[in-house]
């Protein structure tokens, strides 16, 4: 399984948001330049899963232009993995993710694959 997401980016517009699934999972938001600015998750406490969470974050994070997502029941560990991989690549977390002192350290290979 690829560590870094390979899902297609979609524009943040009413049509795309309305078509989002209600399942649980993880998502990334990007700015106009394609830079990831937030990595989030729709956990079991969210109303309407990814549909509600992506829409809420897209509305509250300035500059968010596009999103991509993965439906997964392993949203907890997958969210941590995406954050760790981003920090391994950029030396920091995405701009709109809060500091996470307890986040683990990952050193994925350049391909982003397990080995």
């Amino acid at each position: 399984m690829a560590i870094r997401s390979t899902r297609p980016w979609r524009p943040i517009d009413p049509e795309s948001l309305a078509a989002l699934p209600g399942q649980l999972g993880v998502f990334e938001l990007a700015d106009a330049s394609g830079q990831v600015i937030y990595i989030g998750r729709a956990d079991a406490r969210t109303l309407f899963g990814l549909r509600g969470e992506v829409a809420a974050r897209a509305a509250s994070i300035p500059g968010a232009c596009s999103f991509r997502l993965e439906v997964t029941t392993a949203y907890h560990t997958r969210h941590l993995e995406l954050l760790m991989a981003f920090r391994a690549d950029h030396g920091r977390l995405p701009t709109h993710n809060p500091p996470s002192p307890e986040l683990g350290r990952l050193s994925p290979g350049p391909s982003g694959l397990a080995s």
Partner: protein
Amino acid sequence: MNLALTDEQELVVSMVRRFVREEIVPLEAGLDPDADELPAEDFARLKAKVQAMGLYGLDIPPEYGGPELDLPTRTLIAIEMAQHRAGLYAPCYGVFGGAGLAQLFEANEDQQRRYLEPMLRGEKRGFFGLTEPSGGSDPARAIRTRAVRDGDDWIINGSKIFISGADRAHFGLVFARTDAGKGRGGVTCFIVDTDTPGFHVRRIVHTLRAARYATELQFENMRVPDANILGKLNGGFAIANDRLSRQRIPYAAGCIGVAILAHEMAVEYAPQRETFGAPLSSRQAIQWMLVDNEIDIESARWLTLAAAERAERGADFRKQAAMAKLVATEGASRVVDRCMQIFGGYGVTKDFPFERWYREMRIRRIGEGPSEVQRHIIARDILGASLR
């Protein structure tokens, strides 16, 4: 032979039970159903409470500052500590502390100063690196990670899988083959700093378990000093084997704790829920599920306490620990499954903890040696080592 709990055990068990139900369970209502950590302020507050109760660092030997409690009492406490949603893999979210890598209590003075003492002070975390892609239950044959001597150092190459906590650890115990021709006599345990060049945490291994996720490690020409050998050169098998046997007792205890809570919930629910004009508890099908739960829990509990009692007095407890692990993991799996059935549709929702226990309990029949390996250990004890 006295099977009754002592006054001290009764007191400690009721204290921990009250703590879990009054402090931990209410907090879980506000957490994600798959959470494995408490918010930092809650963790600090509850850890201070446990310290005030005199129960912090349960498995730390008294000479290192742990409470003076025997293994049967610690097993009873472990059964209580698991009685909440995250209890199987994150009992009380770690606020009771722990011994960390107990193997370090046998380390030499220099290693204790560099690793054990900071670990006990909470400054350093460690991981246990045994299992490899080629297997984990048979370390004598499965270990392919190699360590080759180079002057006063060793160069380690290889990989490990299903390793918990390595991504947040400062050091770990890594088992590597130092003599290819010696089987179990050719494995050595190294203490490895995770900032050593060539140490890589390649990925999280996503499983049914949400808490205490596992990682995959890769070692590329990782240089480790000879001074970091734990125990003796080629003496790693005994360290791994001892750990595997001892770990089976708390592993069983956690399963029993979850089974007890699941069963309690079902016992409370069955008289309330009506079908076709009568409560579920009036149906023999449901009554027999509850009866079978009771039998599974009691048999696992006594086997596990018997193993703990043997280990406490220094008797060989490998067979008893294998029996406890086998009966507790398989019995608790059945209990959770039955309770889920009694709760019907609600049982499979994330509104209730059964679905998390169901997923995590499935791992328990594989982790720390699968059921088949436990049966192999028991058979070998009955028929002698020549069985192999």
